[in-house]
């Protein structure tokens, strides 16, 4: 009989669910962040070699107190989810992409994600630039280098890069790229821009 490990819903894991060449792999991670519904999961899904997964963390009582839970009798915890994908870039390195919304109150999750991350790609919607301030602040707070990827939606007028830089108060050398998170090559190009920048910063 062939042994088939299974996940929570009883589906078997396939060979390709496991990390290729796991015994010799070094895992690294890059964050893909942005405000709610900016396209993080779509972006991760477009280049991940596995179906994007999601995991939850339970907020502690203390953290939950920050949330508005008044009137929800007996509810002392709530959960937040992060989505992630995987990309085997070589026989030695496997890259994980983690995405979560930029709410400050999910501090434990942010610390888990940010610790040891190579850098962050911040997805922004040109029509909702103000929604990106909080997440940019957070990434800077954790000391992570980042690039901005402007996710284009159909019919969106293209905002000039200069005005976007000014609106987001970016440093001159912070890369700004446009991308279509639904498109594999476009997402990969945005990620490549970030990695080139990180490499420049590390040299």
């Amino acid at each position: 009989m062939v042994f088939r490990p299974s996940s929570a819903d009883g589906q078997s894991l396939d060979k390709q669910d496991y990390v290729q060449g796991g015994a010799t792999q070094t895992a690294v991670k890059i964050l893909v962040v942005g405000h709610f519904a900016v396209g993080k999961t779509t972006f991760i899904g477009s280049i991940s070699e596995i179906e994007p997964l999601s995991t939850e963390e339970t907020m502690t009582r203390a953290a939950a107190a920050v949330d508005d839970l008044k009137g929800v009798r007996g509810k002392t915890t709530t959960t937040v989810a992060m989505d992630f994908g995987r990309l085997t870039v070589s026989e030695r390195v496997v890259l994980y992409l983690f995405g979560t919304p930029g709410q400050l109150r999910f501090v434990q999750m942010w610390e888990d994600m940010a610790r040891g991350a190579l850098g962050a790609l911040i997805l922004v919607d040109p029509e909702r630039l103000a929604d990106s301030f909080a997440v940019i602040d957070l990434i800077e707070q954790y000391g992570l280098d980042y690039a901005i990827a402007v996710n284009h939606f159909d019919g969106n007028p293209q905002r000039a890069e200069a005005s976007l830089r000014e609106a987001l108060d970016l440093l001159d050398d912070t890369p700004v790229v446009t991308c279509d998170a639904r498109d594999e090559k476009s997402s990969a190009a945005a990620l490549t821009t970030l990695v080139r920048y990180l490499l420049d910063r590390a040299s």
Partner: protein
Amino acid sequence: MTAPEEFELASDGLVRAYVITKGRGLPDEQQLSLITLVTAAPDEDRRPQQLSPEEQRLLDICSAGYLSVAEIAGHTKLPLGVVRIVLAGLTEGGHLITRAPVPRARDADRRLLEEVLHGLQTKFG
């Protein structure tokens, strides 16, 4: 008086998680980070008969190759904190092999970034 079962049902999973983890605290952050790679140790004979259902389930899922801690949580739908604690117990018992990510250092970062860049260019042109 409230029966124990009712209390558990009303507790939003908190008591159950505590039972699953046998009351252990969170393991060292570096040892079982989100991207620490985990696989079952090859020596089947050393596996104890007294594993909890969750320990057995996590060991099973780790038996066919390497997965990151985050992936194990994603596949099992267990909360990340619970997964980390159960994996830490299994690691202490010698049932798991873990590969923690390399500590951050400028030289190591540069090599890794070069490898990531090259990989992206090869895969996506």
